[in-house]
């Protein structure tokens, strides 16, 4: 190592660095599906902790509604719902995580809004959960409606639509309030439980999960007002229409299954069904799977692996779980709800 000419050293470094930069420029693969197949698993951006939606159970396995949306995609692609690797992303970094290719899809209680759809280079899949922002208060405050919250302190999370919804709701009603914003959802919940805030606000589904982990869930009431529309949908990058279709139709397969009364348990008996739509859905006839670039039995695998929408809902957030949500607007259109799958044809 003697007499390295400084000039050569600089030039060498320059070339090396230049090549390195070129190589590391994010390669936005048009074919997310190929990358997923090659990797052997779906990278799924989820909430770090949201009871019922995505949380680690006592064995360390992540479960929840959002998790199941990802598992459906995994089942469609691999025939196995468990080839999902979950990447917990905070509200603040979730979109960057997807944009940069760190995850293949985001299934993380994310509200579909105009500006998110049109300025982030991302696309939203189908609405998987019709939610709305609510406000929860301790029962002992004896508050009956959001209109009584004048001069109250409200705990909110940053980087969500909730902060702006709160303002949009209170400003025209001339209600003065104060907001304390927490980056960390544990601090945010704790500040509410200790009484630092008089009220806590987020999507109603999420409020139910907060209440589920309260020391005594009965001490908290969710106010009747729904102050915003919060359609929660999975998110994918804008540059891959095929991948978006896979995510979209993996979900619709579960909705269609509920409509056709196909469940995890009885899906095999439907393989011999005479109903042409059932036959197309389960890949007995037609070539819907091929159009997506997937196996003919992709939808069968989704239903066999994850179940239909009702099963997914009831298992994770339904009335028999600690979250205790009713279907509400998330009922099928045939039952007066908003869930509606385009036909499998």
């Amino acid at each position, binding site marked *: 190592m003697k007499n390295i000419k400084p000039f050569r050293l600089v030039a060498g470094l320059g070339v090396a660095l230049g090549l390195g930069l070129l190589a590391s420029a994010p390669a936005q693969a048009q074919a997310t599906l190929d990358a997923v197949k090659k990797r052997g698993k779906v990278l799924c951006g989820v909430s770090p902790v949201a009871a019922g939606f995505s949380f680690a159970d006592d064995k360390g396995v992540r479960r929840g509604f959002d998790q199941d949306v990802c598992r459906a995609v995994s089942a469609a692609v691999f025939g196995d719902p468990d080839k999902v690797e979950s990447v917990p992303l905070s509200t603040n970094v979730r979109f960057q995580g997807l944009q940069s290719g760190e995850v293949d899809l985001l299934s993380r209680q994310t509200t579909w809004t105009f500006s998110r759809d049109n300025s982030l*280079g991302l696309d939203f899949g189908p609405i998987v959960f019709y939610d709305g922002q609510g406000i929860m208060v301790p029962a002992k405050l004896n508050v009956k409606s959001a209109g009584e919250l004048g001069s109250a302190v409200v705990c909110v999370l*940053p980087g969500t639509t909730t902060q702006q919804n709160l303002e949009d709701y209170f400003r025209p009603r001339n209600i003065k309030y104060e907001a304390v914003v927490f*980056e960390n959802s544990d601090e945010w919940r704790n500040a509410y439980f200790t009484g630092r805030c008089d009220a806590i606000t987020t999507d109603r589904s999420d409020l139910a999960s907060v209440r589920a982990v309260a020391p005594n869930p009965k001490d908290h009431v969710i106010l009747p007002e729904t102050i915003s529309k919060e359609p929660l949908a999975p998110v994918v990058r804008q540059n891959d229409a095929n991948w978006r279709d896979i995510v979209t139709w993996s979900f619709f397969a579960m909705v269609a299954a509920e409509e056709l009364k196909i469940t995890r348990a009885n899906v095999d008996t439907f393989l011999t069904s005479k109903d042409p739509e059932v036959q197309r859905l389960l890949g007995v006839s037609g070539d819907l799977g091929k159009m997506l670039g997937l196996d003919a039995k992709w939808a069968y695998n989704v239903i066999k692996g994850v179940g239909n929408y009702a099963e997914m809902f009831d298992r994770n957030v339904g009335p028999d779980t600690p979250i205790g949500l009713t279907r509400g607007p998330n009922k099928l259109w045939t039952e007066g709800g908003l869930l509606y799958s385009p036909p499998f044809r």
Partner: protein
Amino acid sequence: MTRLFYDLRVRAILYQVLAVAFVASVAWYLAANVSQKLAEQNIVTGFGFLSREAGFVISPSFIDYKPTDSFARALLTGILNTIFVSALAVVFATILGLIVGVARLSGNPLLRALAFVYVEALRNVPLLLYLFLWYGLIVNLLPPVREAIELMPHVFVSNSGVTIPAMNWTPSHTKVLLALMAGVVLAMTVRRRMVAQRVSTGVERRMWPWVLLALLGPALVALLLFRPEITIEYPEKGRFRLAGGAHLKPEFTALLLGLTLSASAGIAETVRSGILSVGRGQWDATKSLGLDRGMALRLVVLPQALRVIIPPLTSAYLSLFKNSSLATAIGYPDLVLVTNTTMNQTGQAVEGIAIMMLVYLSISITISLFMNWYNARVALKER
């Protein structure tokens, strides 16, 4: 031509030019790469969002900020919150650090041990953990605001902070305050003049009546001239909160406490090393002049120790300022918290991070420049 290339000075200049060109081209490449990739992914870029309506509340804010104001004003509010808490923490940490640093060298073994424990406990645990601890203590141990403890009449302590009666502030109050500040400057000038006179003439005159007059005179005149009304607003229990009065919030308190304590530990060590750097002979000399220990410290040792203290003190101030960004964790709306919200509502992360970096960089450089100037001022002047 080859001879020119072997000329040492020409080569030196050539290397400099090449190095600058290299750095510039890497920077240009990175910037171009980012904007191209963002455009390819249809991600909106530019700083146009700054003039759009922010639509979220920030409390506390030191300037008049409403949710209808622009993102630019929201960011300014965040910057001021950062500066305010850092500036207060710098003042308190310096005072506390000086006291603890001197205590570390005290002749009293108990005091010395106490100062030692203080320093080691604070500087060996990450600041973030302390922030969670202080905030957790305030929020979990103190009662909720509806069961607030009334410490003194009209002074309430709860886990929503401390609420005290406050005077209604008007422009005429500001004028009186300005007059009082002018009085401080005047009093210092008068004192310096009189000391100089005493030194040159050797005649002892009573100083304090004149200094006192210079100090309070302008304020008294302003008081008579503007006659500010004194009305006091008492906090009252509302349905949810205490309305009225002045309110010290727990997020701010915990952050100020955390920053002050952790920085004071570092400063204490700096002060100790500074004092130890002053030669033994200086102490002996003060004893022979009959100065007591306090005077020796104040008049002889500390001024010399400052030369050693100031450079590391600059670093301590800089890290305190940068550490204030941990505010996000406990919900104090500093620059980082406001920028995070802004980035999420606009989706423009690159711009948001760039603004944050620029602000931290420029304020840090300002602190460095000021401290370097002060360092040059107290440096040993060799004549």
